[in-house]
């Protein structure tokens, strides 16, 4: 186990996995007749070389921080929350109800209300599978997958029914009142007196809430008794029970925190960007959270960095789809490879590294 120093385990394994994923993706791009170096150049230029690109990237990053943290918290309790997608959808419902039916005087109050709405709805949606795991022993992976589909049904039901304004054709709620609209990075730059920054990019103040969530999760997991209990249960269920940690309580709490974080993703997409609740607003972010958490080794700092990377990939992928024959789905392939190498084929990545370290240490 302790063949490699800790830094190597934390830094080298994800980086080697990423390099492998990038290499295979480059081969795929070559195989479909495009140039990988051109593709990379396009991605960097479209994302990092202009402020609007940053604005899009940070918008995606915000989603991935929330879902990545959510998956991480569950991972610490040895639970696999694959239901982030469904929890985010129901969280979106919470945001919509709060924004549509409460007359908010100012966005700063609205975002607090919406955060609570999103978190509570997400919590409820994660709470049921958690209860079934804790009390009835139903496998959380299967139940959360089922709850994803049921959530899609619930969202669909409300968007073609009760929440759709009369006379409207598309399945969406009415636009949220202007007082709930969140300032985007463009608005904030203007307040600081900088014009023409982040032009019409969707990144908004919820990015800072995501950063706060990183700090909060770090504090919770490593600085509180509850976090200690969560980690203890995750490392060894029997040992934790022997030490008096109630597994039912911890499973419930860890999953509900996870669900709340997933739900809060909706303040970025629903209150911040679309400013009404639409179908498919999650765009698979709940699943990307899995890749982000694996890549970030379930640590908030790692999650932040991995979320930035995936934000870059998403915005870069949009650029590629715009200028080349490479479709957006290329990003899903990269995401799959990252999950595969960091999550399932870890032994393949670790074993050669460990051998290398052994050789260097001895010699």
């Amino acid at each position, binding site marked *: 186990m302790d063949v490699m120093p800790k830094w190597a385990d934390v830094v080298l394994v994800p980086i080697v996995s990423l390099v492998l994923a990038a290499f295979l993706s480059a081969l795929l791009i070559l*195989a*479909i007749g495009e140039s990988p170096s051109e593709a990379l150049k396009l991605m960097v230029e479209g994302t990092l070389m202009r402020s609007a690109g940053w604005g899009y990237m940070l918008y995606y990053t915000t989603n991935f921080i929330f879902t990545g943290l959510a998956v991480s918290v569950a991972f610490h309790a040895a639970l696999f929350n694959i239901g982030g997608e469904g929890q985010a959808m129901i969280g979106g419902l919470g945001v919509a109800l709060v924004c549509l039916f409460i007359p908010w005087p100012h966005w700063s109050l609205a975002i607090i209300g919406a955060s609570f709405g999103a978190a509570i709805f997400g919590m409820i949606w994660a709470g049921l599978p958690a209860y079934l795991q804790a009390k009835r022993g139903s496998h959380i992976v*299967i139940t959360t997958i089922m709850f994803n589909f049921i959530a899609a049904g619930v969202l669909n039901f409300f968007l073609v029914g009760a929440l759709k304004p009369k006379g409207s054709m598309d399945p969406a709620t009415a636009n949220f009142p202007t007082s709930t609209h969140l300032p985007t990075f463009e608005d904030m730059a203007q307040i600081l007196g900088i014009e023409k920054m982040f032009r019409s990019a969707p990144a908004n103040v919820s990015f800072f809430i995501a950063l706060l969530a990183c700090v909060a999760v770090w504090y919770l997991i490593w600085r509180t008794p509850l976090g200690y209990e969560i980690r203890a249960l995750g490392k060894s269920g029997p040992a934790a029970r022997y030490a008096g940690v109630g597994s*039912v309580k911890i499973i419930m709490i860890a999953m509900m925190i996870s669900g709340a974080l997933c739900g809060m993703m909706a303040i970025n997409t629903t209150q911040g960007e679309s400013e009404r609740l639409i179908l498919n607003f999650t765009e698979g972010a709940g699943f990307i959270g899995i890749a982000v958490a694996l890549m970030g080794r379930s640590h908030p700092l790692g999650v932040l960095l991995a979320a930035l990377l995936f934000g870059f990939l998403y915005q870069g992928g949009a650029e590629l789809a715009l200028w080349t*024959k490479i479709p957006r789905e*290329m990003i*899903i*392939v990269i995401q799959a490879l990252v*999950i595969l190498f960091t999550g399932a084929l870890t032994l393949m990545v670790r074993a050669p590294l460990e051998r290398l370290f052994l050789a260097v240490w001895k010699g």
Partner: protein
Amino acid sequence: MDFLTLIQVLDSTLRLATPLLLVCLAGLFSERAGIFDIGLEGKILAAAFLSASLAFVTGSVWIGLLAGIGASVAMSAIHGLASITLRGDQIISGVAINFLAAGLTVVVSQAWFGQGGRTPPLKSGGRFEPINFPGAVPSKEMADAGPIMQIYSELLSGHSLLVYVALLTVPLSWFILYKTRFGLRLRAVGENPAAVDTAGISVVGMRYAAVIICGVLCGIAGAYISTALQANFTKDMSAGRGFIALAALIFAKWRPWYALGACLLFGFFFAVDNRFQNILLPAWSLSAALSIMTVGLVGYVWRKDLLDKFVLGGLAFGLALIAFMIVASVWDVGTSTQIKIPVVFIQSLPYILTVVVLAGFVGKAIPPRSGGVPYVKEK
């Protein structure tokens, strides 16, 4: 609803249940050998894409079928490598396979055909055509035929070859799993791999065999979707069937004959959903059904602890609220007003039923004991 309509719905049930059944049995082999497989969805998708592509290019549906099986087995091999040889996390590997298939199929089909992730429509020869039994009446004359003839011509005849293959796979799987030595060993590997190892049988070999069988069956299912049910590949055309099959597998408690029942039931939901846009029921009956569930839940949690009371009580409250709202909404016009069942409810039923079964309220579903645990040989 007349008799012919019923037969037509059952006919469509059979067609829609076929891919579920093949995938469900695929999952059955894999999970019975102790390898969880969340990646069924990805395997069907990869198979559907490659079989539609090669059937289009070569004009032969058989080459398409083989290619589909090849694609699915390749995905299975990755899953096997990750979860058997490298002892990685089976669930994460399955998730990765789903994404790999979802991404690759679109990227490659865009590169090959340039039609935004679709493959060109298949002509005859590139598809599995319906097989008409001797003496079956064509659908135009169906209304005049007698009930027995309708059953024979509409329900039994006129399906593509793979539908019959899928139905035959059920007894075959049962026979292999319960009546052969191979099947006994395969089931044992999922329950207690150490015992199998002690008997001098390769756990790794058995598990790979199971994963490959799973790949072959998923491959047939994928080929069926893109060359028999539809006539080309479209993006994400597996449409969650892998997960529904997984649900059916749990519903069937990991048994082949039960799997047939579960898949036909779920296929029936889809057939009903396709056929009837409006399902109407009197308001009072809906409210009564919900109220009975509420009372049942309250009765169940009466002597349970606080958490049970809170969660299930909350659920009961929610159901009671819906029952009340249904009655309140039709109070003025009378409680026998017909209420439309939301389409999404019928679509969500397979998932809801699976959760209920998983929760163990209606017969407990117990998975193979060593499922999801990599086997480490003692050194």
